[in-house]
């Protein structure tokens, strides 16, 4: 039996765990530069995580099992998702069993439990955050599925590895359906990972926060896991975008050199994605919550247009 795919699988998860925080660090560094501040360095997220892990967990009196269970679940789904998305190689055993729809539902499970846990303690912020999060999710998820379906229509499969392989062998870049889907995907990524203009990851301003409001009651290793998971989520969405829209460089053969090259290209593309993200974030202001329907509505529109132009124009 060929062990190579399993090795790749494990390698991918390890990279996800290791590079996830660094990617967030990279985005923060870039943002500091863009705003003319001095940054805390690429490795600040690691230090934050270490600090959190070494602290005690403080639980509210009326916290139920959901509250304690949530950090592990969120972390677990992120790791699992890392096994599905072709980050380094397209030859993944998990990818054969799970396709894009599974991936989306993995994220949905994590979100569901986050919202539950937010309401579990019964504080006002938790409930408010949960309701906002679900509002965003209910708008973002259809758009996300639509964008990914457009891609799977274009590549005639819902398997991520297959899509990536097809695009790599692809004849054309200038397909309107793919461009539309990509634009929609970028908008959704901003919403799903809680970036500006949907949410601001850097503040705890009560009127605007969404994701932070739900996890306000967490501390210690629980908070560390959640933070780590959300860092991984940003990494995963970027990796997903890369795998579907710009997979060039991802290894498709069992070759050490290819994997090394894949790693190199991945870092390069991540760096570029970070720049794009920072450009968007510095260029835009945070939206009012009521404008979000329009923002995500446009994401849905773009995705649908992508699908339509697949039928009409291709």
């Amino acid at each position: 039996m060929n062990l190579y795919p399993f090795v790749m699988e494990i390698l991918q998860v390890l990279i996800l765990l290791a590079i996830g925080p660094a990617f967030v660090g990279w985005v923060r560094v870039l943002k500091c530069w863009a705003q003319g501040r001095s940054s805390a360095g690429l490795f600040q997220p690691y230090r934050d995580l270490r600090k959190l892990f070494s602290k005690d967990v403080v639980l509210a009196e009326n916290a139920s099992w959901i509250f304690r269970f949530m950090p592990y679940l969120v972390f677990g789904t992120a790791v699992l998702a890392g096994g599905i998305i072709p980050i380094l190689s397209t030859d993944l055993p998990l990818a054969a069993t799970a396709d894009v729809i599974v991936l989306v539902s993995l994220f949905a499970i994590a979100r569901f439990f986050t919202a539950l846990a937010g309401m579990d303690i019964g504080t006002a912020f938790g409930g408010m955050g949960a309701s906002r999060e679900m509002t965003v999710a209910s708008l973002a998820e259809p758009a996300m599925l639509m964008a990914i379906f457009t891609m799977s229509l274009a590549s005639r499969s819902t398997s991520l590895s297959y899509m990536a392989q097809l695009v790599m062998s692809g004849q054309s870049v200038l397909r309107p359906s793919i461009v539309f889907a990509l634009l929609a995907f970028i908008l959704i990524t901003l919403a799903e990972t809680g970036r500006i203009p949907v949410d601001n990851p850097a503040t705890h301003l009560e009127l605007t926060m969404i994701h932070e409001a739900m996890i306000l009651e967490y501390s210690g290793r629980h908070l560390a896991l959640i933070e780590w998971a959300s860092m991984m989520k940003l990494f995963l969405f970027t990796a997903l975008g890369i795998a579907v829209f710009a997979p060039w460089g991802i290894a498709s053969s069992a070759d050490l050199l290819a994997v090394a090259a894949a790693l190199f290209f991945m870092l390069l593309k991540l760096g570029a994605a970070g720049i794009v993200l920072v450009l968007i974030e510095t260029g835009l202001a945070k939206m009012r919550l009521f404008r979000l329907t329009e923002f995500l509505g446009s994401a849905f529109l773009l995705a649908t247009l992508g699908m339509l132009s697949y039928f009409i124009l291709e």
Partner: protein
Amino acid sequence: MNIHNAAQIISFLAALVLLCAFGMLVQRRMYGLIHLFAWQGLFLSISTAVVGFVAGKHHLYISSVLTLSLKVVLLPYILHVLIQRLKIQKEVETVVNVPMTMLIGIVLVIFSYHLTAPVREISTLVTRSVLAIALATVMIGLLMMITRRHAVTQIIGFLAMENGLFFAATSATYGMPLVVELGVALDVLIAAFIFGIFFFHIHTTFDSLDVEQMARLKEGD
């Protein structure tokens, strides 16, 4: 540039034209609208030139230049000047129910696709699939004129419709005969002057360009 690549470029430009149409549908700011309109004209002009190149129809170059000068330069400039003269740069229009409008827009795209199916079947041109997009642009311009209540916006919707029609002519038939295209351009130009005069009339009479105020003529009174 072979046929396949050209078809792809034209499709891509068509998609951008459609995107501009949707953008105009929900854009609130006056300048934003004018810029989107100019972009749409630009994509239109490029795609006309590409079609002309591929099909070897040289009169399309003339229409391409005509579009460029009229829809990308002249009309946006006129609108710009008008907006400045009327001092409505800052005016922001309330657009009701954006998601709903977008959904209707999508339905219109599907409807146009369905409607142009017979043409697509018998046409042999590389641009045949673009006709659906062109009709959709016309329909979205129509939708814009219905949903928006500002005189300037309605006019931009009208001009966007004209863009769609022009696009239809290029994509269905490689362009209408030149005399017709020139005549249509002339009509658009005259229309531009007339709506310019109109803006001033409306503005001085109603103190605003909101056409909602024009509701005196009703049945039975």
